[in-house]
């Protein structure tokens, strides 16, 4: 990265975004909105399928703890700002929406619209930030040997965090279109239902 006054300022912004109020706590709290199955065998707060919520929760936790918290060198990157902004706006809208539905039984149409439209921009920006930060972190992951388990050991097991991160990156290739398509489908359903209501 070329050191320049602009980049340094954005680095500062990135770091500030990282240390910003309850960033790690909020991202981890997302774990509690576990998903609801059709057969509802698990107690749940949100009625979304596993294939849509698990990747989101997985990537949030991975980025927050596995990359940003574990590798401080990444925190200064400008993508941290775009990441936090994308996640924050999404969550503010999403939880306001759910909160209103739980508390009042309905949500205003403009909030519904926001919930099912902002993702059109925020998913690309958020996913790009995630992938970008993952990529930026790779050299640090490789060098640090953090979370790695090497052979030989009694349980004949090994774990290479660098390879796991590459695998995580690879999952974004089919994963991102899947998530985007899912939201497009939800958008069509939600916005057409409100028209006929």
């Amino acid at each position: 990265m070329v050191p320049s006054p602009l980049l340094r300022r954005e680095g500062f912004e990135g770091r500030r975004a990282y240390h910003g109020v309850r960033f790690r706590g909020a991202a981890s709290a997302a774990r509690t909105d576990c998903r609801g199955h059709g057969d509802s065998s698990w107690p749940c707060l949100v009625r979304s399928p596993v294939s849509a919520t698990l990747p989101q929760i997985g990537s949030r936790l991975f980025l927050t703890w596995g990359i940003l918290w574990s590798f401080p060198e990444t925190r200064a990157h400008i993508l941290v700002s775009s990441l936090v902004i994308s996640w924050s706006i999404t969550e503010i809208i999403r939880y306001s929406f759910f909160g209103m539905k739980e508390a009042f039984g309905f949500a205003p149409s403009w909030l519904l619209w926001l919930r099912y439209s902002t993702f059109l921009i925020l998913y690309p920006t958020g996913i790009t930030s995630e992938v970008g930060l993952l990529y930026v972190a790779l050299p640090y992951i490789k060098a640090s040997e953090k979370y790695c388990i090497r052979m030989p050991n009694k349980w004949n097991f090994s774990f290479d965090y660098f390879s796991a991160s590459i695998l995580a990156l690879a999952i974004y290739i089919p994963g991102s279109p899947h998530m985007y398509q899912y939201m497009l489908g939800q958008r069509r359903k939600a916005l057409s239902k409100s028209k006929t209501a």
Partner: protein
Amino acid sequence: MKVTVVSRSGREVIKGGIELHDEATVSDLQEAIHARTKKYYPSRQRLTLPMQAGIQGKPIVLSPKKKLVDYCDGNVKNLTVVFKDLGVQVLYRTLFFWEYLGPLVIYPIFYYFPVYKYFGYEGERVVYPVQTYAMYYWCLHYSKRIMETFFVHRFSHATSPLSNVFRNCAYYWTFGAYIAYYVNHPMYTPVNDLQMKIGFGFGLICQVSNFYCHILLRNLRNPNGNGGYQIPHGFLFNIVTCANYTTEIYQWLGFNIATQTIAGYVFLVVAALIMTNWALAKHRRLKKLFDGKEGRPRYPRRWVILPPFI
């Protein structure tokens, strides 16, 4: 009688319907649909009675051996059936063959060939006896499975969707490679001799038991393929509904006790979860079918799959 064939959205699949004689069976209807559509062979067709509006529950699936009149409620001249395309089908034999062939071939590759140099491990590797026995045990297991597929098992549904081939092969082949990688690793740490013998010994006993369970299950079913359910009995089936899964799980436990890899234990847990799901469904089905009413025997109190837990 005239049979109207519609899709789930209400569209007519066969224009003008199909004319069949009054004693026709569902199987005859399936043949007729196949003749008219060319593409949809019988095993690809799922025919159900239309759902009544507002009534919950599962749609009634037409059984190939039964007569069409059995599904007509009063009006024996007209019947409407709902058609669903199950997609390209493969024989269960084909599915099982390909999913088991993978592990049978992949595991010995890690044992016999110098694959580890591609993972960065140069030089000769020392092979412990347990690694050799593990390879024999593993290959015996999957050879047995393939033999059973062709000579022992009697399948209630002859086919399975093609997509299952990819899904199942991914599961077996990936886990096969994952386990083979660790057991044959140049830096593998063997357990002590006694533990190895206990592991393989116990595993072999369970494999033989598992084979016997499969023989018993085969003999439950009528050779002319009625496919009707019976209450399983004999040997371990007197105590546990899905004794075949029980012995399979314990057989893998034996392998893991002898080889001691996290990879092997992960596979054991995942396989046990999958089989437990199947076992619960089967147990429930049998209890529902054998309810003790109308002359049917009552399903006895039994463990589902893993005494004393479930």
